[in-house]
């Protein structure tokens, strides 16, 4: 003990010490959800696609990417591009988070002033990515054959290299990369996922209500447990 502690006899307050106090039985998990202390299960993460319609103005992309890095959302890809309306751009994000994290990401995104609307896409939404892959040209015929297997197109050929363009789902692109490895991959460039909802469903409609998901209650007013939508894997 240092010399400063000579004068501490009167420091502190009266009352029953911690060990004499009653303790509640319950417990919460790291997401603040009350859980059965016996189970202690942490929720699984899932990958999902979030589409945001934003004002097409400077700084929006850095607002969005800054938000995701600052709040430590696990982001897999982010793409941005113009839309049918010159004043609006669409940002497509692929994130991998547990359920509360996905909800929080959507809400935080919606709070940004230039963001017009946010929608998490259904598992059956159309998702596409484009890849340019440059491989060694030692076996050009075989490269062309593999490109064909993945509906790819040869977009550049030189005596030493062949560059193929492949579009499709993330899984298809990754399968293609694996197959092209046999030729010796020199460079890859991928766009990240862009996506649209199917049919007449709007990908990101006009700004929706502030709270998208309202919990459901049983007859006596007890809330049902937080819903988990099934995981989707492209």
């Amino acid at each position, binding site marked *: 003990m240092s010399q*400063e502690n000579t004068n501490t006899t009167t420091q502190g307050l009266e009352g029953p010490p*911690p060990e004499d106090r009653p303790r509640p039985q319950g417990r919460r998990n790291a997401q603040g959800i009350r859980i059965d202390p016996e189970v202690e299960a942490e929720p699984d993460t899932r990958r999902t696609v979030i589409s945001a319609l934003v004002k097409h103005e400077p700084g929006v992309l850095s607002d969005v990417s800054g938000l995701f890095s600052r709040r430590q959302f696990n982001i897999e890809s982010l793409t941005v591009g113009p839309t049918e309306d010159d004043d609006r751009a669409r940002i497509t994000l692929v994130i991998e988070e547990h359920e509360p994290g996905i909800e929080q990401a959507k809400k*935080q995104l919606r*709070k940004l*002033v230039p963001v017009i609307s946010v929608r998490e896409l259904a598992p059956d939404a159309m998702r596409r990515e484009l890849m340019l892959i440059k491989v060694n040209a030692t076996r050009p015929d075989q490269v062309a054959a593999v490109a064909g297997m993945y509906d790819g197109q040869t977009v550049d050929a030189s005596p030493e290299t062949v560059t193929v363009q492949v579009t499709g789902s993330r899984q298809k692109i990754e399968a293609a990369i694996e197959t092209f490895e046999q030729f010796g991959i020199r460079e890859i460039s991928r766009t990240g996922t862009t996506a649209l909802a199917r049919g007449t469903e709007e990908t990101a409609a006009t700004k929706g209500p502030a709270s998208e998901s*309202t919990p459901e209650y049983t007859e006596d007013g007890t*809330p049902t447990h937080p819903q988990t939508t099934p995981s989707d894997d492209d």
Partner: protein
Amino acid sequence: MSERAAVSPPDEQDEEHEHEQEQDEHSEQSASDSTETEPESTPEPVTTGAQSVIRALENVGVEYAFGVQGGAIMPVYDALYDSDITHVTMAHEQGASHAADAYGIVSGEPGVCLATSGPGATNLVTGIADADMDSDPMIALTGQVPTEMVGNDAFQETDTTGVTTPITKANTFSSHADTVGDDVGEAFALANTGRPGPTLVDLPKDVTLSETDREPAEARVPDTYEVQERADDEVVRAAARRIEDSQRPALLLGGGVIKGDASQACREFATEHEIPVVTTMPGIGSFPEDHELSMEMAGMHGTGYANMAITHCDTLIGIGTRFDDRLTGGIETFAPDAELIHIDIDPAEISKNIHAEYPLVGDAATVVEQLDEEMERSPQAKKWRAQCQQWKSEYPMAYDTPEDEPVKPQFVVEALDEATSDRAIVTTGVGQHQMWACQYWTYTEPRTWVSSHGLGTMGYGFPAAVGARLAADDDQEVICVEGDGSFLMTMQELAVAVREHLDITIVVLNNEYIGMVRQWQDAFFEGRHSASEYHWCPEFDTLAEAFGAKGFRIDEYDEVADTVEAALAYDGPSVIDAHVDPQANVYPMVPSGGDNGQFALSEDQL
């Protein structure tokens, strides 16, 4: 002062909720005053971007602005020269941002601060971040180098919108003199619509110097910005049933109750249904602490009884709170038996840290009234209330005052509280003195507690007192409780308080330590006082006199009452250098990430 300017900012919500007369009375009163009593005075037409900036501020009723001059903001200051807006030149831009922040807290209208580009703007950053963490309405206007030089690393160039993006509710880089006034109006509206927060408009010098004859558009939030005022009826019904059926209900009132002018609604709800009330630190003043139902503040240095109540309740009604870690302690053990009814105007706060079984997005006062209308009976919680009262007597905040030891800081705080009115405003810095000011002052009114909660900015207290003084009524005392380390960070603003003849009583709880750090070093770092001993501090009473303020000093108990009385009686800034017990510690204490119910009452319990 500009009477013409006393028009409340346009608020689309007002039209939809005209029945909320009580909340809107003040602003509607002033709006009607200006239309009835003011002759139609035609202001000079706008001729430059800078004049449009000032006109936009006048249009929304700005009375005060806090700032420091500098190269890139000079055109705006030149336009301000002709305005009725009172500009308060601060000693440092950080002081301007804290003063504007406190002005916003006390008045409920966004405080305005101005700074030049580069260092002026970066000096505002701490205050902007502070306002962002505490959701205080504030607008910052920063000069910027001319547009064609942006990106060239010009003299005093900083990417101000880039720097402030993560710490503002919204910011914008003005690109044209014709629209710069619209940008300012929109920033003002955004700062105070929905969940308040700081906004910033960056003003390149060429934009403010350029000619324009366009008057600023009406201040309004962008079309894409929507605020939900009323909560979902189904969730309200379910929440009301839950409260009716609960045996151990507790209200947790946060800063949003004060910002949303919902204190009255919450008081009525709590007393009608006899529900014990706990507050967060920003929620201090939302409920009278001398009321039987008040359990006072919960959290790291909250009262023992508040932490017992929040830990053992079965239904927690959280209003305008974001469940900060200083409140919750460890998430696992926070109110572990409670179903949470969470009312907040920001949907992103609901279930962010603590899952809400009953999410109620909306304006605090509106939703509390919705809940109240839905309630068919009060909860049967007599036993629980008796338990809460028992905890109050089991965990008193009493402290000893041995005559042979230095003056206890708690004693000085209580002496000031006794000598002042219920409406006295308290501002603080950050540290032990701040916690004693929370614990030992009995707050009864909203907007009387002004502190740096989320960011924990040492040095906040005194510049905040400057802003609070100008926003307060003349009969409200403004008391600034500071620590020696904290006061030393921004005390140059004494020059401003003397120049402006501001009646502020500053009490420095001087323990010659950066005391909270010293307390933690004793508890967690084996008493190794690395860089926490401050015996090199100046004599604050002598220094106050050098600034032209009045200086006092306290060393003994018998000096406290008379000195406090003399300092309060002095018309102008006065500084009491109160030499208090350097060994005094802040208790109760829940260590970081700890269990609120297991709060320590002394160091050996940590």
